[in-house]
């Protein structure tokens, strides 16, 4: 995988590539994106064979029981796993802190989700997976559950203790499906928390581009050894993927994997060193702290592992909010952080961050402390920074998300939606946790949360699609006798 893949001689396209490898591209696009991108884009033939080759490389790189590559993000990986493994009407146990694409997968596959509440650390609003006991109780109540889903690591780099959960799920005959979008690097260094398959998960979905050096939209699905899903997953990948796969994305994913296989441990050793230096330096700056110094927290607290390359920095002691600090670093120091919460922001390091990057961030943080001091003096007193809004409980689900998605709906003012069934997913950011789910009852608490969490007055969602339930309640429901019973199980 080298420059040899770029075309060595002029190629002309009479095979319906409208840009023709360059001649048909607009001047600015050619100048800014570069001709090599469009030349590489001509090599679109034989896509299926190239996808299979990349599948084999993934299987080898991650030592899995079978992997497939994706070019439409880990979202399509979540769709794929649900479609490969679940059937309409199946119960699936889903913590509420999942990515929207898991809810989309529930809509596409027609499953009946059982939602579990995550644990929320009250001071910073960090989200932890539900405790093991919640999963156990949910499996007790739904013994025929078809699968258990968990997000690990989370956006914030918090890794759940997968092994006991995987064991529990397996004993119940429901494989653990892990949305490991933020963890494609874990496999490549012993000092990083172990990845999901290494801890007994049945399958995982990774977003290769998020952490490795592959281009946007590249992702992978991995299956545990002995998984029976291999063929279904491969076929579904082909059916979910456009026939005109971008050769550019495939090339970048292959190169990124080979980089990891060749020198992954060395690259991540250096990254871990930099993360360590950054953490130490942040501790030395008054008023800042990485969260894990401050808030050892949660029911399974001894068991949380944190990806050392994700650093959540508390800033509220400076009297500034996470958003203010993040925007200050952005505007003044041209440092782009990953995300912010009420009282913190998140720094995400990868093997590609250099010492110069760290230095600029540290200079920016030191300046942030000075800037906040001046801002405080301007206001007179140090103002307390409000904490995260408490998450409202999820309204009970009266239709499956699929039934609600397809039900007749109307658009009503948000305030008037209380008591209706939501027709859409609402997940205000930050933190991006679903507040409303299609088919779930809209509560007054949820509406208040959505209004309060708006970035600015007037920017809240004004209207909501709700199920026109007077006409639907009885009719849209899939009758229970129409559901396919699971083999060898009494459905709860």
């Amino acid at each position, binding site marked *: 995988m*080298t*420059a040899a893949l*770029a075309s060595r001689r002029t190629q*002309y396209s*009479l*095979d*319906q590539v409208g*840009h*023709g490898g360059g*001649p*048909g*591209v*607009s001047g*600015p696009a050619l100048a*800014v994106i*570069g001709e*090599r*991108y469009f030349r*590489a884009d001509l090599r679109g*033939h034989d896509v299926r064979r190239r996808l299979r080759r990349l599948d084999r490389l993934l299987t080898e790189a991650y030592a899995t029981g079978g992997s497939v590559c994706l070019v439409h993000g880990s979202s399509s990986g979540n769709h794929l796993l649900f479609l490969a493994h679940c*059937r309409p009407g199946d119960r699936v146990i889903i913590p509420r802190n999942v990515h929207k*694409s898991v809810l989309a997968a529930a809509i*596409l596959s*027609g499953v009946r989700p059982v939602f579990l509440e995550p644990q929320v650390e009250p001071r910073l609003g960090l989200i932890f997976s539900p405790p093991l006991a919640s999963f156990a109780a949910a499996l007790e109540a739904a013994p025929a559950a078809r699968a258990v889903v968990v997000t690990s690591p989370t956006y914030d780099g918090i890794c759940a203790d997968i092994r006991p959960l995987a064991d529990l799920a397996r004993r119940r005959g429901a494989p653990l499906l892990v949305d490991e979008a933020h963890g494609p690097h874990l496999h490549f260094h012993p000092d990083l928390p172990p990845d999901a398959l290494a801890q007994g998960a049945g399958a995982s979905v990774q977003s290769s581009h*998020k952490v490795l*050096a592959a*281009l*946007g939209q590249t992702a992978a699905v991995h299956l545990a050894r002995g998984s029976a899903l291999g063929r279904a997953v491969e076929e579904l990948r*082909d*059916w979910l993927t*456009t*026939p005109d796969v*971008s050769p*550019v*994305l495939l*090339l*970048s994913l292959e*190169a990124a994997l080979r980089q990891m296989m060749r020198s992954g441990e060395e*690259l991540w050793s250096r990254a871990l060193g930099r993360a360590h230096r950054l953490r130490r330096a942040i501790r030395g700056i008054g008023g800042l702290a990485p969260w894990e110094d401050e808030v050892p927290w949660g029911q399974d607290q001894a068991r949380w592992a944190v990806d050392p390359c994700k650093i959540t920095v508390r800033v509220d002691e400076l009297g500034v909010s996470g958003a203010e600090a*993040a925007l*200050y670093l*952005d*505007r003044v120091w*041209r440092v*782009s952080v990953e995300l912010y919460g009420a009282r913190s922001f998140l720094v995400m390091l990868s093997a*590609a961050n250099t010492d110069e*990057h760290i230095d*600029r*961030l540290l200079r920016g943080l030191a300046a942030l402390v000075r800037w906040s001091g001046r801002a405080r003096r301007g206001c007179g007193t140090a103002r307390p920074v409000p904490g995260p809004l408490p998450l409202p409980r999820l309204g009970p689900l009266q239709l499956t998300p699929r039934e609600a998605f397809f*039900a*007749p*709906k109307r658009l009503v003012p948000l305030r008037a939606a209380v008591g209706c069934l939501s027709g*859409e997913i609402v997940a205000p950011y930050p933190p991006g946790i679903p507040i409303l789910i299609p088919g779930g009852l809209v509560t007054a608490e949820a509406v208040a949360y959505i209004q309060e969490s708006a970035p*600015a007055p007037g920017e809240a969602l004004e209207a909501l699609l709700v199920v*026109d339930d007077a006409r*639907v309640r009885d*009719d*849209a429901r*899939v009758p229970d006798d*129409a559901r396919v019973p699971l083999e060898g199980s009494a459905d709860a």
Partner: protein
Amino acid sequence: MLDGGRLPPSTPQNAVGGHAVGTSMPLFSALATYDRAGYVSFHMPGHKHGSGAPPGAVAALGRSVFSLDKTAVIGGYLDALHAPAGVLREAQDMLAFCFGAARSYFLFNGTAAGAQVLLLALCRPGDRVVVSADLDAQTALALILAGVEPTFCPPARLDGLPAPVSASALLECLRDLPRCRLALLRGPSAAGQCADLAAWAAATRRSGTLLAVDERFGAHFRFHPALPEDALSAGADAALHGHCCLPFPRQTGALHFGPAVVDGPGAIRQLDRAYQLCTVTSVSYVMLAAMDASRAMLADRGRAMWEEAVGRADRLCRALRRAGWRVVGGPGEPGWDPCRALAWCGRGSAAARARLRRAGLLVEQLGDWLSLAVTPGTPDAACDLAAALLAGGAGESPAGPPAERAEQASLDRECVLRREQALSPRRALYGRLRRLPLADCAGEVCGELVSWPAGAPGVLDDEVLLLPGQVVGGHHIRLLAKSPRWRRDGLAVVEAPAGGERAPAGAEGAAGRVGR
């Protein structure tokens, strides 16, 4: 105190009444400006603006591809695909304006995503739809995801070339299908033969059916009067475009909706939600910027671009005919895409394609034909080279009747395109299945999605042989018996279908059901 900040302007230069007429590139400009601002990234993607990109990939693709490969960032400069309010919203509006649509969406998983959005946005489980029988596996999966009840309309055939569904075939189909919700038809065909769009539109309108046209092979029609009419102008409610006829990168495309289905804020919200359901959250901004820049170029000088392309195609067709080739399509042949020449090669088509490829000319093979498509990205030199390489080559295309093998394949294909659907694909797929030896499957209802065995002559990539719910015939078994996999594994057939997802009552007029 820091809110509302913005990097230098991305305002359209040609705004008319707040609506840009087209030559500005809001998303492309914002991305280029942000890139030049020299940010240090503690954000995804992991290559951090290319600073850790593998050297081999940089050599092959260039550094700027990595540098521009960003995602929605803090500060909102690059907007966010699932809640577009800035440059992305503008870029989407300008895309719609450029293609004469009421609402348009960028696609990042090509026509596969387009088919999913289309069906999930416009249909409900149990809805009846009419679909061209020569569909690809991606469209078939979209039918399964939406849970609709398809009836397949066999397309006409011409000398082994795929053709669009005829108006009479569509009328016949619709006559037998009261309350059909949607017709999803491909036009022009993969060979560039155009559909009778006016008749399609009239037939669907009469029966109260929405018309969605899979226009992946005719996305350029709008830009020159010498090209055939485009679907939206002819009255279609939706048009699906891929990358191939536009200066878009591979794997991209666009989905356009006409005014009848973009009927009020509730309908728009439902279209948005269907789009978000089927679209990755962190899309490739390189693809997005390339589409935005191309759209601006199309708006600015699309007509001149295709003026030249049609001229080149004309010269190429003449040269081929002079050299003794039997050529179909090209300028002057009514009902065909003027930018395309099809040259008949008989059994020599694969060899001819390989020969051209070795000389640096990428062409497609459609059964016994070579397809030469001229786009604005095809320079004169390419057409000259093609004409020169094929000048003496008409000899390798014996102008006799097709060989016996091809005849059999063609016959099989005719059979396959007359699909008999016993059950909705979703109910069949999720029904109780059992696996039977291939020889015992005749007359059974298929329980899985089966693509044509690889390398079947005259069949497009990913074309569907059998859908779940389809009745298996002897010709299917004959075709599958050639493949070791199917001989070994047999075929899954339906023992008992899954229960139907009942179509909710009171469907008409609700926001969940956009349009007529």
